[in-house]
């Protein structure tokens, strides 16, 4: 189509010159680059990281797959390396409030040291106490007290026994007490013998028994008192022996931890407990429990053995750490964040103690940095609430969800809260950030820093070099073969294609990373030592092939004339529009026939898609703009007296967007003017009320969509696409399209105004408006204006006629 400005092949694609990259293969690049063109996000992260005031936590926002987490993690790691190593935290049994374990802070490394010291103390105490209580000295002193008690008791019973003997009575032990019975030299009298005694003798015996029973009662009442005294005395010896046995060990430990008051208090508590409970260390004569109930009873009384209660539960051990921790919690459930108290099953019951307290991510990150995935955090029940509560109260309080919500009232542990001092980074999509800002009033208070990641960066020389290094870093991390400069250049070009902009590069690292891995695979398949541009191209083609089943089906449908698309000839009120389908990360274009019908009416343009509720609001807006354009240009002097209908033919799904509004206008103008439109062309672009063509999205896919159909049918040399001029910078077309343009078999026309487009589509000059408001004769606009005036006249005449009739 000579004379009409069209794009040349150079304008359709921006090539990256491999020689400009400054290396032969990526193996030559040592410098690691993890972030490119994210100055805004970087300065936000730096600000959030370095302000220690509460609430300066960071929300890192941007689309998924950009490597946001790695980037923030690298920022944190760099800072954390120079931060102070946070303290250790331990939980110990609190003997005053057993259900509230005590949290103790210790300098880094001291927690595990103290735990070892306590284990050693327990072992040594057991040996020392065992030796002390096994010693001859102790045994003799203890036995002495018992013997004294027994002797005292024996004396009384001996007296009683003598009294009984004198009264001719025997003292007999029954299963539940002591009884007296008459006896003679042969032994206790039988009931028959007793019955043979005279009444007086029996009365005498009864009196004697009564007297002895009174004496026995007095003795029995005295025995418990002596028993208690003996026990107290033994307890005193026990304490004395135990104190002697463990005193040295305890003092040694107190000396070592003299600077830590809470530790000294804990050690003193241990000493007190040993001295108060010396019975636990005596050689046990306990028999094995024979019944279930006995066993339960013992366990309930004993709980955890005394020595076990002295042990230390290390919640945070920073002995191996240099600097502050950087923790990423991949599964941010409520207990994984806040910590939990675990249970173990015993005899069908769930039991717990302070040693079952387990730390959460907030404990591990305390004094450092915690990174969480916002979406995962928000989808875990109560995790977000728990995190906020901890940040607001500045302490980590371990309680189960049930406890936190007061759903359960069973007795459980309530560990002492640990002070919280950490920086949190939530990583998530923009939508989540804005939803949180909008709907959670506490969010803005707690996450004051937003680090917004750019999805595209400018493709200039500096960024190109950095981007190449970024690619080299990804290659190194992925441990693939080195890439040739031509392969890197191809990756950069593909990045621009993904950004749909020849002046921008995509920062979506996941896509690049996938492509690198797949290119490496194809290099292996092809037996290449280094990955070259053909391997990259193969990977791109394979990605498209895997995803384009639906595109093939659509094309097949067009080529079999099931979906009607003309690529030659001319038609009035019919035009090839272009639409884009997006399936995940895969986009493709498809031509769609748009038709217009015009008849006498009152200036309405009917959008059939909207009438059947298949058109979205933006599409409807675009159609209404057409009416505005018609009225503004052609109906200044006469009313717009037409009724027009527009439709996307054979569209069975929804239509939205205004990228076809210029196409619809061409179809409408063609219908009004009754001038045919060339079917070998397809059109995309939105239009405003002044007829200016505006940029649209997916221009590459749209051009390729029409090109593919034309190619399948055979390129005629006059086929092509009209695109908005402002979309030229977005062109990163496929090589085969570029080749066809180069050889003149396909054309791409940049259009700035509707008048330019109509000339290309109809071959008729559009005609500029003259001073008197008219258009040059035979120009397209003159034809349209004439047709509209004709319609206005007809309508007026029709109005009169119908008015007369009605009279």
């Amino acid at each position, binding site marked *: 189509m000579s004379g009409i400005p069209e794009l040349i092949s150079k304008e359709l694609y921006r090539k990256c010159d491999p020689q400009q990259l400054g290396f032969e293969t990526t193996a030559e690049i040592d410098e690691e680059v993890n972030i490119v063109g994210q100055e805004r996000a970087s300065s936000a992260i730096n600000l959030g990281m370095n302000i220690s005031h509460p609430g300066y936590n960071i929300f890192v926002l941007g689309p998924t797959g950009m490597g946001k987490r790695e980037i923030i993690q690298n920022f944190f790691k760099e800072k954390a390396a120079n931060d102070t190593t946070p303290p250790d935290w331990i939980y110990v049994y609190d003997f005053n409030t057993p259900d509230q374990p005590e949290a103790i802070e210790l300098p880094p490394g001291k927690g595990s040291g103290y735990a070892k010291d306590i284990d050693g103390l327990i072992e040594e105490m057991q040996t020392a106490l065992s030796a002390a209580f096994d010693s001859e000295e102790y045994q003799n002193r203890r036995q002495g007290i018992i013997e004294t008690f027994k002797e005292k008791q024996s004396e009384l019973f001996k007296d009683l026994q003598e009294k009984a003997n004198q009264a001719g009575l025997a003292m007999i032990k029954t*299963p539940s007490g002591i009884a007296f019975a008459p006896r003679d030299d042969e032994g206790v009298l039988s*009931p028959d013998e007793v019955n043979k005694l005279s009444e007086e003798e029996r009365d005498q015996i009864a009196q004697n028994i009564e007297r002895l029973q009174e004496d026995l009662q007095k003795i029995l009442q005295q025995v418990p008192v002596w028993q208690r005294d003996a026990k107290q005395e033994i307890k005193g010896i026990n304490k004395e022996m135990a104190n002697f046995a463990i005193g040295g060990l305890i003092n040694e430990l107190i000396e070592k931890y003299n600077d830590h008051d809470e530790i000294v208090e804990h050690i003193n508590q241990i000493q007190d407990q040993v001295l108060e409970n010396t019975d636990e260390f005596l050689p046990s004569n306990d028999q094995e429990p024979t019944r279930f109930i006995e066993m339960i009873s013992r366990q309930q009384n004993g709980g955890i053995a005394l020595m076990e209660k002295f042990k230390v539960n290390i919640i945070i051990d920073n002995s191996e750490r240099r600097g502050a921790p950087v923790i990423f919690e991949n599964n941010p459930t409520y207990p994984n964040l806040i910590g939990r108290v675990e249970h173990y099953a015993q005899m069908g019951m769930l039991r717990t103690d302070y040693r079952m307290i387990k730390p959460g991510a907030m404990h591990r990150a305390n004094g450092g940095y915690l990174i969480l995935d916002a979406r995962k955090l928000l989808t875990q029940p109560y995790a977000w609430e728990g995190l906020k509560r901890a940040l607001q109260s500045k302490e980590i309080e371990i309680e189960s969800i049930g406890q936190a919500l007061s759903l359960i009232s069973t007795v459980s542990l309530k560990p002492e809260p640990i002070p919280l001092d950490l920086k949190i980074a939530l990583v998530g999509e923009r939508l989540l950030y804005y939803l949180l800002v909008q709907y959670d009033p506490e969010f803005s208070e707690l996450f004051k820093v937003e680090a917004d990641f750019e999805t595209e960066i400018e493709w200039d020389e500096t960024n190109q070099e950095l981007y190449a290094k970024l690619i080299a870093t990804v290659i190194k991390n992925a441990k693939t073969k080195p890439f040739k400069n031509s392969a890197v250049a191809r990756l950069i070009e593909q990045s621009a294609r993904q950004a749909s902009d020849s002046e921008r590069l995509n920062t979506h690292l996941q896509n690049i990373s996938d492509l690198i891995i797949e290119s490496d695979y194809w290099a292996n398949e092809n037996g290449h030592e280094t990955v070259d541009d053909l391997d990259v191209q193969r990977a791109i083609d394979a990605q498209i092939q895997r995803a384009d089943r639906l595109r093939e089906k659509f094309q097949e449908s067009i080529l079999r004339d099931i979906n009607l698309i003309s690529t030659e000839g001319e038609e009035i009120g019919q035009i090839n529009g272009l639409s884009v389908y997006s399936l995940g990360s895969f986009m493709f274009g498809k031509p769609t026939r748009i038709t217009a019908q015009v008849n006498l009416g009152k200036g309405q343009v009917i959008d059939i898609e909207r009438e059947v509720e298949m058109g979205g609001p933006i599409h409807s807006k675009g159609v209404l703009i057409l009416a505005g354009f018609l009225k503004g240009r052609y109906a200044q002097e006469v009313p717009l007296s037409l009724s027009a209908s527009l439709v996307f033919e054979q569209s069975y799904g929804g239509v939205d967007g205004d990228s076809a509004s210029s196409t619809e206008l061409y179809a409408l103008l063609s219908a009004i003017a009754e001038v045919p439109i060339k079917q070998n062309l397809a059109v995309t672009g939105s239009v405003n009320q002044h007829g200016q063509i505006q940029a649209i999205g997916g221009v590459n896919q749209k051009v390729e969509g029409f090109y593919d159909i034309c190619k399948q049918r055979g390129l005629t040399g006059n086929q092509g696409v009209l695109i908005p001029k402002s979309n030229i910078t977005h062109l990163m077309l496929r090589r085969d399209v570029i080749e066809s343009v180069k050889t003149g078999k396909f054309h791409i026309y940049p259009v700035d105004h509707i008048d330019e487009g109509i000339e290309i589509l109809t071959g008729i000059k559009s005609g500029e408006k003259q001073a008197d408001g008219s258009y040059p004769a035979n120009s397209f606009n003159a034809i349209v204006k004439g047709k509209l005036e004709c319609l206005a006249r007809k309508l007026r005449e029709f109005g009169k006629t119908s008015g007369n009739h009605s009279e």
Partner: protein
Amino acid sequence: METTVNKANQTLCVDRILISLDSSRHSFAALQAAIQLADHFNAAIHGVFIEDITLLGLAKMPFRQEVGEYSAIVRDISSDDMSRGIQVQSRWIIRTFNKLINQTDIQGDFAVLRGKVSEIIANEMKNYDLLVMGKSGTNTMQPGRLGSTTKATIQEQMKPILLVEEGNQLGFPMIVLFENTTLGMISLETCKSLIDPDDTIIIVILDDDPDSKQSKKTFLSEWASKNHINISFQCYDSRTLGRYIQKIKGLKKGLFILPHMQNLTGEQMENLFLERICLPILLIKTPPKSE
């Protein structure tokens, strides 16, 4: 069946053990010791619980009252209560006996008998080699370490008796009181048969005459050397015996083998050991009859 003697070395051969049980803790300790011995001698154990007819008769007397052992309350006794109380005790004892026996490979059986305790034991012992019993019964208020039934049994029974006290158990040290008599030698040989080759027998020599003491030591040293046994001596006289008893009375693990002493002084000393020391005591009263 008669108790047999190993003619070569005059030691006890125990094939069948009788254990008299009541519901006291002493009985439980005695049962554990009996099992240990049965295991050593590869002997069978026969347990008995004797329903004391004196107790059953008490409930039929006009003055059928008892004073609660802990509550000190005087209350009437009925035949039903007494029978039920005895049955509860017997059931508990049978269960405990079976449980402990079943944990071993030892052959054991149990019987509940009724009568006078000392008479029943005397009658039953005709068929057994060794009697094991607690040093006292359930009466915690009685004066002295030995219960009345135990005393009566020691008095009447001529076969070896092992007496065990609550909380004590068989083991080491093994102490033998040496008497230059047949019973003394049997005690020594029995101790030898109970220890491992590397262990040491503690031999207590009680003699006021230094020459006699030395001569006993010489004899025992030769005996030990001949039998490759480690021994150590504890020599005392009647004046210092109390000190020795004081020294060992706190021991709760071990075995004291005591040959019966027939003269008056000897009997007094025997009673002293029986009453004062806690250790399990194996009392050997007569030489076992030859097969």
